[in-house]
């Protein structure tokens, strides 16, 4: 039998809720699928949709975005903005011919380690079912991003 497809998933987590939920899951030794690699943001509102595109272009098969429950945002209401962007992003991706199912928005509070692991496991299976993302694999992709970003880097205002 052929070995089953192991999707690569990038997860963007809010520093206040879901990243702590991941810590909680760890402390409680809850086992879950190793396919997700987390990147910490201060808030789901920080998520620039281009991060998701970048992740796909660089080889991710799925992207998970997690934030505080509606109404519980550490920054009052930014998770709603994340929600709006997420919905728009899904449509855009569909336009690109990418299954919207490859992006998932999850609410998980700091207390919800179990929920987070369940969501991760579920999402891994969903992406596994979709199969590998056949994004045009062209070596230049990264460089283009670099060059587009060059101006940013050049004019970065030091804090």
């Amino acid at each position, binding site marked *: 039998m052929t070995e089953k497809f192991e999707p690569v998933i990038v997860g963007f987590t809010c520093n206040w809720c879901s990243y702590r939920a991941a810590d909680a899951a760890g402390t409680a030794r809850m086992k879950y699928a190793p396919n997700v690699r987390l990147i910490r943001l201060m808030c789901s509102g920080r998520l620039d949709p281009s991060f998701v595109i970048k992740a796909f272009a660089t080889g991710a098969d799925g992207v998970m975005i997690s934030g505080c429950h509606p109404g519980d945002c550490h*920054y009052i209401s930014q998770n709603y903005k994340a929600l709006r962007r997420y919905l728009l992003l899904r449509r855009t991706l569909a336009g690109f011919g990418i299954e919207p199912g490859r992006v998932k928005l999850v609410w998980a509070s700091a207390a919800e380690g179990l929920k987070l692991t369940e969501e991760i496991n579920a999402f891994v299976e969903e992406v596994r079912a979709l199969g590998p993302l056949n994004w045009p694999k062209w070596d230049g992709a990264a460089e283009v991003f670099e060059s587009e*970003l060059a101006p940013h880097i050049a004019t970065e205002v030091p804090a």
Partner: protein
Amino acid sequence: MSDEKKTPKEKIGVYVCHCGTNISAVVDVEGVRDWVQKNMAGDGVVIARDYKFMCSSLGQELIEKDIKELGLTRVVVAACSPHLHEKTFRTAAENAGLNPYLTELVSIREQISWVHTDKAVATAKAKSLVAGTVKRVVNNEALEKLKVPINANTLVVGGGIAGIQAALEIANGGFHVYLVEREPSLGGHMAQFDKTFPTLDCSACILTPRMVEAGTHPNITVLTWSEVTNVSGYIGNFSVTIKKKSRCVNEELCTGCGICIEKCPKKVIDDTFEAGLGYRKVIYTPFAQAVPNFPVLDQPNCTYFEKGTCKACEKFCPTNAIDFTQQDQILNVEVGNIILATGYDLFDASRMTNYGYGRLANVYSSLEFERMSNSSGPTNGHIVLRDGKTKPETVGIIHCVGSRDKNFNNHCSAICCMQSLKFAHLVKEHTGATVYEFYIDMRTPAKSYDEFYQRIIDEGTVFVRGKVAEISDIPRIPDEEGKLIIQVEDTLVGKQRRIPVDMVILSNGLEPRADAKQVGKLFGISCSSDGWYIERHPKLDPVTTMTEGILIAGCASGPKDIPASVSQGAAAAARVMDKILQKEVELEPVRATIDEDKCSGCRICNNMCPFSAILYIEDKGVTRVNPALCQGCGTCIAACPAGAISGTGFSDEQILAQIDGILMAV
């Protein structure tokens, strides 16, 4: 793809921790070390080491040594969660003269070794996470912490015993406190109780001095009949809006003589303080020792407000303090810290129809009984049936009403066992009646609590182990005629019993406040799934929350008895004074900044900010960020179409590079 071509602009040291065997049992630590050494040289990794305990002083020295000797410009530590040891390693780097924000921590314990089992997979994941952070740290910038002065004033919300304690501790420490209470008087639930377990000293006797002290303390501004309506700002600098509801009584003129109360012709049922068991006048103070003792006029029930006539209170007031035109006042106060001691609600027993509360006259709630046994209560301390005169000969006390029950509240309300034992004692003392206690498990863990249990057994109370199934007024045999029949399985006997009694006292559970969620939202803290406020850490940090500067004390975070509530009030106060004495708080320098040359003044970002830290400069046609107000969420950065906004600590470059890294082929 690696960047061999470019010569790396930074010198990076990577340190992989075994954490004893916490990590090394699942992750091939040496493997990770060698892989980084070999594959990330192009990104500037000049040294990669592993060590048993990186967080140990020896481990830290290792880093400091390398910074000094190898001239490292960036440090990456792969160990536990940044929420645990980020500070440790950043301080270490700082000691060696490296800006702390050039050090990053990778969580390979919480996110890998503790949650995965397959060593090969775990090791691969560890490599990619480290790679991600290496590529990220290259783009880190040296940052300086923002220091903001702390406002020495404190807001305490809730005038129950926990709030009073907290306020007094801080006030005695020499700092000013605004103590806000939504009811007309301080005191909270404790003021309604008769005796306190297990010592049985009179609740009012020990509470009143504290209330008076708080009421008269030069450092405490007591605002009763008031509610917080808005909170903005951040630790050290909150501005709070408080609505002081109209009392229709001029506090400057009122002497609290009480003549108005005496003369008021109208009585209504007092659902709040007397728990619906007694009456109060329409102009009233909830109880004799009320602090402050200015009365409140209950406008919806006042004859004058209904019909435009009466004004008895005004006529008889010797100081003309009655003011029917008085409006709600809006106060704005600036504080540095906020303590929430908002307490609990009592479970509404009428939801359990099988106990007949509200249908069967002689079924009482715990609070009704507290008022009844209280000598200043509606029955002057006489324990009687609903008819107001008959003494009960047999009384049943039921534990866990609405607690430990998935149909209502899953949690144990912690105080009900002791409360019920206290009731048993009081009933015996006042009436000599036969008392039955129906319990599932007897929980008496605190100091001299179990001794109290022994004492109640010794007093001859009959204990039946079983959750009462129903209370019925339908007799099956003559002995049950005219009685309430408690139907229960005596689980220690294994038989169903029907025990006829004259009176039933329910030991209602404690619930989160009905408005806990809204209030939490107002102050920027969240509730757990069962509705209590979440502590920063349930064991090690029970009085602070995830939001800096907002603390919790007493039953707001879960059921507690008086000693525990008092301790928490004091603990929260200590935390606040610690902050005040530091004079200023350091804020993480995670901030958004706008490059005005790139800003097109489109103003898309302007309504992104919930802290109004973004201001549009009309004449320049550009937008600016106020670093003191900015909390660093980064939503505006993601929104800016021109890429004019950048965020320190979490810049696009850092994140995009990290994505590259974690997706590197390993």
